[in-house]
């Protein structure tokens, strides 16, 4: 390998660092190698293997790959072994240096491309491919040897259900797309990929079913995704925050999931899925409010059970939002609403407590939030102790000390349990936070305050839109046909049409 003189080296470095010039592969192998060595200076995991393939003296073939991203078995068996074999054949003249011959007769990798631009070479090198430079040819061969260690497919931790598929997405985008393809075996499932993030160059895929999805929604999604200008996309939540309709709203407008069957179901309804490399959470757009209160469990059990469970969930959703406020409002302003014996126990319970109901509620709620946050980070051996039961024990101690009343402990515990019944985690967080202003309203204005707070929330929800679809559909604007899947889930033999709120092209399911 011949290195240039110092001046030319400086030129080369200067030349390489200005990426504006579109560089092409040079027929001189050494120039290509120098280029890459400058680019990947101080990268010890880029490995260069030189082989004498076609001539005895010179290293005329160079293999370059990045250790850790590649499958070494493929490189060993299918590339290096094959290239080395040529030296020991008699008819060496047959194997003239042409990329065609190398591609077709020597290297036995399945996925081979030929490139001329250096930028593509660098991109494919960083994706785990092996680059083969051959002296005298101004094209290089890129062989796909992707490998590397990835987390195996396990049960999704954030969404566990009783019955149904137990596969969850991993961090590798190829595996994720493969899982979705395995469920929808149809050529209409389109997978469009692009690279986002100026520094990280993350692979992002937009998936949809052609023929069902609405064209305008798809266009809008692509427009927004292409506008993203960020240095790195570390998780799908980065994209979620950037393409939301209403960034200031406490409610999420884009759903995310870790389960391929859920993605497939939503794709079949006319949604678009955005899959991000490095994140097991797939985004589903557009999303509506009711989606966050539904879980895959409802669809895999019989419809009657789904109905009962959904009723419980909706009731507890309302409780999670308003229970402490109702308790504060009734015990401070509207004592006439309680039955007499209950009022006597409330009065008795509160007689020993120095704080008014609002302060008590705030203390207990803040304790619970702190416990919840701490519970996420504690190591597993200690974490078992900090559970809801532990919180109740602390509550008992607080009651004996006379800081809070026992009824308050029950209210707070019920609210905590109620917030865990909500399947969508992002909406559970919003509800937890919205509880506090509602408590403030209840303490100052009683039931009137709660009504004002709830009406304000309702007005805000009515205004929200997700990619053109109103957030509260199908309840408002009312679509009677779509109510089949909102409050109850009618049996599958009765669901003949897709939900019309996403305006799919094909309405009938059968």
């Amino acid at each position, binding site marked *: 390998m011949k290195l240039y003189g110092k001046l030319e080296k400086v030129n080369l470095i200067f030349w390489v660092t200005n990426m504006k010039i579109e560089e092409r592969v040079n027929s001189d192998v050494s120039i290509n190698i120098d280029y890459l060595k400058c680019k990947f200076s101080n990268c010890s995991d880029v490995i260069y293997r030189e082989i004498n393939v076609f001539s005895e003296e010179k290293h005329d073939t160079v293999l370059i790959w990045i250790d850790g991203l590649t499958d070494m078995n493929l490189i060993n068996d299918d590339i290096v072994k094959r290239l080395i074999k040529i030296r020991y054949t008699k008819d060496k003249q047959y194997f003239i240096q042409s990329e065609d011959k190398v591609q077709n007769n020597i290297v036995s990798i399945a996925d081979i491309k030929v490139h001329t631009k250096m930028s593509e070479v660098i991109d494919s090198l960083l994706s785990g491919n092996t680059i083969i430079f051959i002296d005298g040819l101004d094209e290089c061969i890129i062989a796909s040897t992707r490998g590397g260690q990835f987390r195996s497919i396990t049960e999704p931790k954030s969404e566990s259900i009783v019955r149904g598929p137990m596969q969850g997405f991993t961090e590798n985008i190829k595996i994720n797309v493969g899982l979705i393809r395995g469920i929808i075996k149809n050529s209409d499932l389109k997978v469009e990929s692009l690279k986002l993030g100026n520094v990280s160059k993350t692979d992002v895929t937009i998936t949809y079913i052609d023929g069902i999805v609405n064209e305008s929604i798809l266009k809008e999604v692509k427009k927004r995704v292409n506008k993203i200008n960020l240095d790195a996309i570390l998780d799908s939540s980065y994209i979620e925050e950037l393409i939301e309709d209403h960034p200031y709203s406490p409610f999420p407008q884009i759903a995310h999931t870790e389960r391929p069957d859920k993605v497939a179901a939503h794709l079949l309804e006319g949604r678009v899925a955005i899959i991000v490399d490095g994140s097991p959470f797939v985004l589903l757009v557009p999303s509506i409010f009711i989606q966050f209160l539904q879980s895959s469990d409802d669809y895999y059990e019989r419809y009657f059970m789904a109905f009962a469970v959904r009723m419980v969930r909706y009731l507890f959703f309302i409780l999670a939002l308003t229970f402490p406020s109702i308790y504060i409002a009734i015990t401070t302003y509207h004592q006439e609403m309680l039955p007499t014996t209950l009022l006597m126990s409330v*009065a*008795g319970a509160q007689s020993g407590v120095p704080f*008014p109901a609002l302060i008590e509620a705030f203390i207990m709620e803040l304790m619970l939030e702190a416990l919840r946050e701490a519970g996420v980070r504690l190591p597993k051996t200690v974490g078992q102790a900090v559970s809801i039961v532990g919180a109740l024990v602390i509550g008992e101690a607080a009651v004996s000390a006379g800081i809070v009343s026992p009824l308050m402990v029950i209210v707070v515990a019920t609210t905590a349990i109620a917030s865990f019944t909500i399947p969508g985690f992002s909406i559970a967080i919003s509800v937890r936070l919205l509880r506090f202003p509602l408590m403030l309203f209840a303490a100052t*204005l009683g039931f009137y305050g709660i009504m004002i707070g709830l009406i304000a929330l309702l007005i805000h929800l009515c205004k929200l839109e997700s990619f053109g679809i109103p957030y509260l559909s199908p309840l408002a604007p009312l679509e009677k046909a779509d109510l089949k899947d909102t409050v109850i889930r009618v049996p599958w033999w009765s669901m003949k049409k897709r939900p019309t709120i996403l305006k799919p092209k094909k309405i009938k399911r059968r």
Partner: protein
Amino acid sequence: MKKNISLLIMLVIIIPIMTGCWDQKGVDKLAIVIGLGIDQTDKGNIRLTAQVVKPTSSNEIINTKSKIELITSEGTDIQQAINNFSKITSQIMFFPHVKVIVFGRKIVISGINDIVDYVNRNPSFRKTSCVLVTDKKASEILMTDVMLQEYPSIGIEGIVAMYDKTSQTVGVKWKDFIKNIDNINIGTLASKIYIVENKEEKKKIIEIQGTFIIKKGKLIGELDNKETEALLWVRSKGKNGSLTLNCPDGQPGKLGLTNNNVKTKLNKITYDEKNGQMAMEIQVKVASEIEKMACEKSVNQKFFNKIESEQASKMKLQIESMLEKTKMLNTDVIDFLSVYQNKNPRKMKEIKNNWENTFKKINISVKVESTIKNTGMSLDSKQNY
């Protein structure tokens, strides 16, 4: 956009702080009144006795001696008296849970129109509280215990609610009490409550029996338990009242009957304009059951027929004596006027002004039909004579 949000956040923060805790009543500052007694003192002032619940915290040992406390306050009228509570105690008197309102005899005699109007107008008082009148002082009633009940007022309310188990008193709630209290022609009823003293054990307990009649806001008269029972029959409410008869055909022994169902209709209302005479017929249909029988003869349909006719005649006598008493008091308790109004609304106006005179001359005939039911598996009596 940002301006809107900051404005919204400011409003959300400022408005609750501005109103503060206005109109807030902490539970520990309330005195929960469950019974109210209204008396008249010798000077002519009103004395209120409030039966208040003592709140016990779950940490303290529950003292079984008394769970209630009595607070009295005096004033020239009821408004004054209620305000004067704040001179004695720091707790706010909380009236929405009042279960029982007891009037003393003296004050009902002098007139309770203003008290009734006050209680009606005040939004704290509920229309489901029971109304009772004593023959002596209401404060004594509220001090006395009710059998098997920790909170006396809740006990009294329970007894009044069970009035149809004995049919010896009228179960009057505030909403029934004020229904006709402004009608000068009709008398309103209130249950009678009094104290029974057991001298051996030196214990005093409450008993509720009988009715007081109030007309034009003043006490007019009293009906004892038999007359009350008859009144309930006329109102189609005399269930579970029992009757004891002699065995038919002169046999020794007694017979006990219970009324299962009483239906009354006021029929054949005629008004003779010349004489100013109104005539009416009360038709009572009773279905009853034999509770006990100690007669000799075996049961058959004839036997039952004899019992039925005897029951009918007894009931007729009882109703007629009740009507006699109301005529004597000159009060229309059964509200014949509105029954007549349903039939002839036009002629009502003439009679309305002159109802008292018309009522004196009213001619009421009573007809009772009784049937004995549930005789399917009736057995002969097991007595041996």
